[in-house]
């Protein structure tokens, strides 16, 4: 595949790997968190940990938007989906996310009209085609997907489509990272910044990481060589005593971000005073809701969702695992109350979450694999 294979070249990977090996200080650990779930996927899919020295540990961050959704928000979505007049639309990866009594796949089997879409515009098209039904789009994602929801809202308003509404669960990336950094027992040295989010918000919002917390950050692309290069850039910063925000993903990310997308978001959304994250608790100003201008398209108002809160089980220790304080099997509920089939915490929801990976593959999930002879 053109424009993809170049970034998956094994010879270049070996070269970057060798440079990382030559730079690392054998007497110190390098704990680097990749904030974004997309990066976690790349790391797994291409086996990047096997190309890094033992001292370099990649810690998977909170950046998987379906995983961090609390049970209460899933339950409220399900309650809307169960209404007979509603066609409920969502992205495919939402279907298996557990609420307190089940997931959307199970509710669909019970008869709810739930349809997977690939874009919020598909949901709007379904609304146009079914004027006698109410179409609700379950919006999720960080700043990456929020602009497309904003544009869909703008279009719905312009076309006067009244049987369409959005149940907004968009979250923002900076507050959970700040919450992690505020934690006194944090054991991380540096951050790989989220590439897709940054195509929208740019690099400026990460300035607080070096400025306030002394942690370097490199905004990275999603191909394996992007990640290898970002690790190299972070190790250089740490070794040279520099601490700044750098942009590895220059081919897609502008320092200032995408101003048009930001404008659309500013029109359609406003910050919630606080929002709950599965496994991390309440975080101030960490999520978006529809702005007053779009209140008539807000599913929360249209269906008067009660704002149910289903507490994370007290024993869930996702926060500690995220901060790098605990390993998955050290959590009290790992493998007993919390399994991939019935996850309690965010890290068990996605198959790439640290806990789910450990559950499925044991030590193999983080041990280096000896690249045996062929």
């Amino acid at each position, binding site marked *: 595949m053109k424009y993809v294979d170049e970034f998956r070249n094994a010879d270049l990977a070996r070269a970057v790997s060798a440079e990382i090996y030559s730079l690392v200080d054998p007497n110190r650990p390098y704990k680097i968190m990749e904030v974004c779930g997309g990066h976690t996927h790349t790391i797994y899919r291409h086996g990047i940990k096997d190309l890094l020295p033992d001292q370099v540990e990649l810690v998977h961050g909170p950046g998987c938007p379906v995983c961090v959704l609390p049970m209460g928000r899933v339950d409220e979505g399900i309650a809307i989906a169960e209404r007979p007049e509603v066609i409920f639309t969502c992205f495919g990866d939402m279907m298996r996310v557990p609420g307190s009594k089940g997931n959307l796949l199970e509710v669909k089997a019970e008869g709810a009209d739930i349809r997977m879409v690939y874009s919020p515009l598909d949901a709007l098209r379904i609304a146009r085609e079914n004027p006698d039904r109410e179409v609700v789009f379950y919006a999720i994602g960080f700043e990456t997907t929020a602009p497309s929801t904003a544009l869909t809202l703008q279009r719905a308003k312009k076309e006067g489509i009244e049987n369409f509404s959005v149940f907004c669960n968009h979250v923002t990336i900076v507050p959970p990272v700040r919450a992690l950094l505020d934690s006194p027992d944090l054991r991380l040295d540096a951050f790989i910044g989220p590439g897709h989010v940054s195509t929208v918000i740019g690099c400026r919002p990460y300035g607080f990481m070096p400025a306030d917390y002394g942690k370097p950050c490199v905004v990275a692309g999603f191909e*394996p060589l992007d990640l290898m290069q970002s690790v190299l850039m972070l190790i250089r910063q740490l070794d040279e005593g520099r601490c700044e925000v750098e942009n590895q993903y220059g081919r897609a990310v502008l320092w200032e971000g995408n101003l048009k997308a930001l404008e659309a978001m500013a029109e359609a959304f406003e910050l919630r005073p606080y929002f709950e994250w599965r496994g991390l608790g309440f975080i101030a100003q960490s999520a978006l809701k529809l702005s007053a201008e779009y209140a008539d398209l807000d599913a929360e108002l249209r269906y008067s969702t009660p704002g149910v809160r289903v507490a994370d089980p007290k024993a869930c220790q996702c926060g500690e695992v995220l901060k790098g304080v605990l390993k998955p099997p050290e959590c009290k509920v790992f493998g007993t109350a919390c399994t991939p089939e019935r996850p309690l915490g965010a890290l068990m929801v996605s198959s790439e979450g640290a806990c789910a990976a450990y559950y499925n593959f044991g030590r193999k999930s983080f041990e280096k694999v000896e690249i045996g002879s062929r």
Partner: protein
Amino acid sequence: MSEGREQRVLDALEQNRRRPPRFTAPRIDMSHGAGGKATHKLIEGLLLPAFDNPALAPLADAAMLPLGDASLAISTDSYVVRPLVFPGGSIGELAVNGTVNDLAVSGATPFALSAALIVEEGLETGVLAHEVEAMAAAAGNAGVAIATGDTKVVERGKADGLYITTTGVGVADPESNLSSASVRPGDKILCSGTLGDHGAAILIARGDLELEAEVFSDTRALTPLVRALGEAAGSGLRFMRDPTRGGVGTVLNELARDSGYGVALWEENIPIRDVVNGACEILGIDPLYVANEGKLLAVVAPEVADSALEALRRVEGGEEAAIIGEIRDEPARMVLMHTRFGGARMIDMLVGDPLPRIC
């Protein structure tokens, strides 16, 4: 964390895993039909305990029924694909080839099929005739007779045009000892051609995605490939499967689990068409879990691997055959892939349902 405590947690998990699964879902949902973990739970937790008998117990593609000195192989499959006609094939052809292949990869020579048609009220006769002709042609090609059958018509809205169930019988080769228990470390894993063509073709043909790409289903009878492989590998042929629903990733996990050995794959040797790779990349689907309807996965002894590969490549439909991996002691009961990029990655069984109604 102490090694001892971690080991205790891992041991507990392993014990859980070996326990027979219980089926606890209150209702059947689409993931139970996807061929991955949920399907396994349904079969092993609900069906197997009720039907328990020695012919069913191995949960193979075909069951072996002793009959005097010989052994009869029997297999059944239902076809509910949408759309009925897709690039490279149609439901009728699929319904014959799929069941013929389940027999062939079990080491049996198929000779007869039964066919049950469930037709939705209002289906155009021309559409039905096209599928019946496709079935006849595929049966002729595979050398099997459609010897008996049944037709039912259901009300409009109760079926998606046409569903077909075929059951096939064949004579098992008394010499063959195909089983996950026959594989040994060092054995090589062969694949008869490019992966993911069928699933990708269906997904694109459904038109939901506004993708335009030329991908054709690979539906074909595997009997010529199986014959060539049997002749070339002889007693060195250990295990065969056709990686349909759930794809190669799921089949190899079953092999690893049932044999107790590890499976290692080499990503750079796995043949996947550029266009399939591209479509999967855009959709976020892993081609290792995408269905095939005309591909053979075989495990052979290392000393016959090269001749087996040559034999496959000489047969139509096997031109792009490749040795994609091998059986190892470690990681026991797991599948590991050496990535093209230079690392390694664990391959799980399919979880959930990436592609609805593909076969």
